[in-house]
């Protein structure tokens, strides 16, 4: 059941690099990460790749396979023909450190900017009470494994480095949506979403949803509802008029 596959792997660092071709054995049931590991242990001991759980749960082994952002551990070799050349490159949106490893610190900087969760006080018996239907929407976004594939594929960041100053990317828009829909949270993040995190940059072309390995509906369930919530506050003339003449409470 084994065969020899042709792999093209990008090797290099910030100063330059290119695709290097390898011929490597592939066995039944393997995923791309297995093959990368075989390259490491047999042909290229210093081939840099980031990985942890190898079960699609930690989101470390993000890279691009045949041009598409994917988790190396969740891409089965059986999805390619035996004669097909498999091209593996690092995430394009972030600075490369070495080979398939990129510097994703942009994402951690954005995470630190999110206005923190601020709960209302517990009930008298020391518990918070929430119904399942109230937590389900935010739970979907908390499935996020922070693999940064959505950040990588989003053209706003991918094709425009300069937008990183104004747009924090789909991951953090759904984080804001998660907090905004959280039944216990007391902070209004709608203005921040629009002004500080660049919600308006998103043109809902949905590549983030296509690429999410957890199947989170980032656009339909997170970003668009967040846009609608911002409309409530900022672009709905009725709400605006209402707040001007003081009929509706602000915020």
């Amino acid at each position: 059941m084994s065969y020899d596959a042709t792999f093209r792997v990008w090797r290099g660092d910030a100063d330059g690099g290119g695709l290097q071709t390898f011929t490597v054995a592939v066995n039944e049931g393997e995923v791309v990460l297995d093959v990368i590991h075989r390259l490491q242990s047999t042909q290229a001991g210093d081939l840099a790749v980031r990985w942890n759980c190898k079960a699609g749960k930690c989101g470390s082994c993000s890279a691009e396979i045949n041009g598409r952002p994917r988790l190396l551990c969740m891409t089965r070799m059986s999805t390619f023909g035996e004669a097909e050349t498999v091209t593996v490159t690092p995430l394009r949106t972030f600075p490369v450190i070495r080979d398939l490893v990129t510097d994703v610190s942009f994402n951690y900087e954005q995470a630190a900017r999110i206005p923190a969760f601020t709960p209302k006080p517990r009930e008298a018996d020391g518990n918070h009470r929430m119904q399942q239907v109230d937590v389900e929407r935010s739970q979907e976004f908390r499935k996020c494994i922070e693999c940064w594939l959505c950040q990588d594929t989003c053209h706003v960041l991918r094709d425009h480095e300069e937008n990183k100053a104004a747009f924090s990317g789909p991951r953090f828009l759904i984080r804001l949506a998660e907090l905004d829909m959280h039944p216990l949270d007391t902070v209004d993040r709608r203005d921040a979403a629009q002004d500080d995190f660049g919600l308006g940059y998103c043109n809902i072309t949905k590549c983030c949803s296509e690429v999410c390995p957890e199947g989170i509906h980032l656009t339909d369930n997170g970003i668009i509802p967040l846009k609608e919530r911002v409309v409530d506050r900022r672009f709905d003339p009725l709400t605006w008029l209402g707040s001007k003449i003081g009929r509706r409470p602000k915020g």
Partner: protein
Amino acid sequence: MTATAPRGTGGVIPGRGDGGPAPRRAAIPERTLRTDRWWVQPLVTVVVLVLFIAYSTFRAFQNAHYYATPYISPFYSPCITTRCEGDSFPEFFTGPSWISPAIYILVLPLGIRLTCYYYRKAYYRSFWLSPPACAVAEPHRRYTGETRLPLVGQNIHRYFLYAALVFNVILFYEAFRSFRDETGEWGHMGLGTLILLANAVLLFMYSISCHSCRHIVGGRLNHFSAHPLRYKAWTWVSKQNARHMQYAWISLFGVAFADFYVFLLATGTITDLRFF
């Protein structure tokens, strides 16, 4: 200091926006390494939308063949001037004869489709190539998305939804009226009746499955459990919302087909299949 320790990342250097790698990113010259035919989908979208626009523009300006008793083309419904063919909607005013009655109402159905979250995705990708497909570099040097005029205007989508819902009612009203025969007697039904009815249903489903509608019926709430009815409505609309794209396309074909059917009747090319 927060979270991450310094990594010596250096300053952020503006990207080139031409698909080439920004400094410090991996040097990969190809715009994309995708091996599939990623350009098929945007191409199909462009072709279909251009065909629809061409046809609907022609028909809207044609100012003829939009009424064949008892059917009125959805492009001309509601027909609100005294110059309208047939007796359809309350006639509000008399406009210059060279202006097609379709023009007065066109902006509303056009508006909901133009600002629709699904169509935005479709035309940003296919017409504006921003991006043409996922992980394929877009050709623009700068990108500001929907942050400034005119695109910030997309945020008024919900007003077009309100208008569209009014239109939906009118289309049902017109479909209902097509249960009358040429003489105005109730108890008629032809293929045209079914087509107008189907068109009204599809357009209604398109409206009701819209993202703004989903927000308004319940999405804006944070405590569904306190609003069981709205939660139910939201759950139902959410289910339809998952098919919003399908409704968007089917209703688009549907409305064109309904118009074409009326056109064929009005020009006498065919006669209506009459059930009773």
